[in-house]
């Protein structure tokens, strides 16, 4: 049984509302924080080992310590609720069911950062969640946890919810800030980093929804207690949104000590694969992280069971491993086509490229067109190599990581499923009506450590 911190009360009727949330001990962490020296709050966050839950896994305490404090310049906290990475729907769950956990986390975080005005930048499509959040903010304000001179501390704090309008790139923190300023979501060149020059050139911390929610149990129970959960540098709990071909899709809070196999097959989590089918492949951390065939997913190249934590998922680098990413866990069964799935993701990245950098703007389009040809039985062997070549030329040559995010899924698909791509080329007719199937991915196969 996994330990729950964020979702422990999610099942309670009415937890969405202030009164119920408060009865469950809500806002006690905020009260506690207001009595703590600011440095001590920061220290607790550092001790907790919390890593950003938005995808990159950067230590939160460290990020906070970078915030510049020029005299007389206001600072801001901006919560990243853009959640658009395919496979990811955990922040939505958190905001929909326990909005006050995010609000409370924001109050504590803003108090620590010295931010008097904070924003939640939420993807525009989550319109009804915007209303839930605004309602929760009103409630918190009425109860005296937001507004002027909160609980007599002299600390003023307002939270505003800003809706995006449909653009994956606005999840990238600098594009998000541009969008918050009423502009196109074009990522900025870094440095300067947001901690120095963020929203309206003011020092700004951008954190994911889940990251900020985790601040509540960290302050409530102490950073050291939080760090006891999990393993190594994967401390605390992580929300995983599981989807694709599994019996029980949904959002799960795990403590990062369970194996991938347990996560997929146990009834507590995904509940196995429908109709007794076999596992073919999985993208465990949102569409941008490398896809792994079943054998490498369940066991590392050393034959150890692969665990659901940052280090173990990344074990073997990109040659034989993958990443925790945002925790968007996508499962493909034996009847799925990796070629078609990759094609769909390629379309996504082409559609979402902001167009500033040539390698990303043009490369994503080329990759999509070549993949489309292959998937429709019109590809050649040279196309597969060309595809490999293009993705390599995008990676690392762009302003923001969307370029990498578009390149990696294609690279991993070719690296691990090249025979399937070749089968499409060799069987231009058959591939229109049939899938390659499972082939040899179910059993451990040695994989050369290339690239």
């Amino acid at each position, binding site marked *: 049984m996994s330990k729950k911190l964020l979702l422990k009360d999610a099942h309670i009727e009415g937890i969405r509302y202030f009164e119920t949330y408060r009865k469950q001990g809500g806002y006690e962490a905020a009260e506690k924080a207001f009595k703590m020296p600011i440095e001590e709050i920061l220290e607790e966050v550092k001790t907790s080992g919390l890593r950003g839950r938005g995808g990159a896994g950067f230590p939160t305490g460290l990020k906070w310590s970078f915030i510049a404090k020029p005299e007389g310049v206001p600072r801001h906290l901006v919560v990243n609720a853009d959640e658009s990475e395919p496979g990811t729907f955990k922040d939505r769950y958190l905001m929909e069911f326990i909005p006050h956990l995010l609000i409370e986390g924001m109050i504590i975080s803003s108090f620590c950062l010295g931010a008097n005005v904070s924003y939640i930048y939420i993807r525009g499509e989550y319109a009804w969640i915007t209303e839930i959040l605004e309602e929760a903010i009103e409630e918190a304000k009425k109860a005296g946890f937001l507004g002027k001179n909160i609980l007599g501390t002299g600390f003023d704090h307002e939270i505003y919810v800003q809706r995006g309008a449909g653009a994956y790139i606005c999840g990238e923190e600098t594009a998000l800030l541009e969008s918050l300023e009423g502009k196109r979501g074009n990522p900025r060149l870094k440095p300067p980093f947001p901690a120095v020059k963020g929203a309206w050139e003011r020092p700004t911390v951008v954190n994911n929804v889940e990251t900020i929610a985790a601040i509540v149990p960290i302050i409530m129970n102490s950073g050291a207690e939080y760090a006891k959960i999990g393993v190594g540098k994967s401390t605390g709990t992580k929300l995983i949104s599981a989807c694709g071909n599994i019996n029980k899709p949904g959002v799960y809070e795990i403590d990062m000590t369970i194996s991938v196999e347990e996560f997929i097959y146990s009834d507590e989590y995904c509940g196995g694969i429908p109709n007794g089918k076999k596992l073919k492949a999985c993208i465990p951390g949102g569409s941008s992280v490398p896809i792994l065939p079943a054998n490498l997913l369940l066991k590392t190249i050393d034959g150890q069971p692969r665990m659901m934590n940052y280090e173990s998922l990344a074990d073997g680098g990109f040659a034989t491993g993958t990443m925790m990413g945002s925790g968007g866990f996508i499962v493909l069964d034996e009847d799925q086509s990796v070629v078609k799935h990759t094609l769909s993701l390629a*379309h996504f990245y082409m559609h979402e490229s902001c167009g500033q950098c040539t390698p990303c703007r043009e490369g994503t389009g080329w990759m999509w067109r070549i993949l489309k040809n292959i998937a429709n039985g019109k590809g050649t062997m040279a196309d597969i190599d060309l595809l490999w070549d293009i993705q390599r030329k995008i990676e690392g040559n762009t302003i923001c990581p969307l370029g990498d995010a578009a390149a990696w899924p294609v690279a991993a698909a070719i690296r691990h499923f090249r025979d399937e791509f070749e089968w499409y080329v060799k069987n231009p007719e058959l591939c229109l009506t049939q899938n390659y199937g499972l082939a040899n991915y179910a059993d451990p196969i040695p994989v050369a450590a290339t690239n």
Partner: protein
Amino acid sequence: MKYAVHCTLYVLQQNRMNEIAFRPEVLQKVQLMKTRYPEGKQKSALLPVLHLAQEEFGNWLDIPVMDYVAELLEIKPIEVYEVATFYTMFNMKPVGKYVLEVCQTGPCMLNGSDQIITHIKNTLNIKNGETTADGMFTLKTAECLGACGYAPMMQLGKFYKEHLTIEKVDEILQLCREGKVALN
């Protein structure tokens, strides 16, 4: 001839421009939104105000509407155009009463979004991006909407319709025709 058409369009647009105005209660909302940002940074309210404008003025952003928004926020019209065209949620041409935005990205595809899209195309006899002749429905394929675990899915107005099946889609279309589907 071309010039004459152009002039007529321009005059029509100017006329419309004079008609376009938020209702007082919406205007009040806009004024409130402008106060959320630092002094002089009222442009930051652009996305929320465009959402309001789209809701108020027929579910798409006509040039006069965008010009009106520019005026309200004291920015240049081009600053509105470049933003409005960047984001997929803003419609740059008229759409049907019900816009069916069906997600087609990987995870939804694994759960049969292709069949849902094909079914809608066949039933309504429209292609992606088109509107039915009676102006009732527009089909728009969408990229991941954050509902991958409840796939296949579509967005309809402000709400998500999840765990779609062919039967469920038919039911939704029927309810739309009967005017029984809430959009916001």
